[in-house]
């Protein structure tokens, strides 16, 4: 699943380390999310979307295989 985390994070000037701390995860998790290598749990996805004040579908792009 693609996501816009890196794009939104950069537009708001939030560094990976800072964002990781805010989300309660490791910096590697944020890096993997940025690269699209890891799909977050629904809880983390909700937390991220809520932090950005966006809907989940505005942050995560679902593509049918």
């Amino acid at each position, binding site marked *: 699943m693609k996501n816009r985390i890196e794009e939104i994070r950069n537009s708001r000037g939030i560094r990976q380390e800072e964002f990781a701390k805010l989300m309660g*995860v490791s910096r590697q998790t944020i890096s993997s999310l940025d690269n699209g290598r890891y799909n977050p749990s629904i809880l983390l996805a909700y937390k991220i979307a809520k932090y950005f004040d966006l809907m989940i579908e505005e942050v995560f792009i679902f593509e049918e295989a």
Partner: protein
Amino acid sequence: MYDKKRFYLSIFWIVLGIVLMALSMAEIMDSSMYSGLGGGLIAVGVLQTIRHLKYNRNPKYREKIDTEISDERNRFLRMKSWSWAGYIAILVEGVGVIVAMLLGQETIQMVLGYSVCLLLCAYWISYMVLSRKY
């Protein structure tokens, strides 16, 4: 999050290690394996104790360990690694059974065969338990 149980467990490893080494040195348990095992247990216990003390005294280290433990990607990786380890063990043991059979090593063949059965039973029981839970 790094609870006291781990601290008590590390003390237990140290004590057990000392007991094993002492019994081995007093030649009550006559094997170098026990002194080696004792030394290993002491080393593990000491390392865990140091980690525990650092965790209690250093807030930055505590935060790092707490994040590492609770991080969902780390949990996912741990579970995935166990899953891979299980698959690899079954495959290697399965190949081992065939090789042992070809070499006429009946005991090894039997031990590996039972081990594969045990792993498959553990998988089946885990699946049954988890399917009721989730």
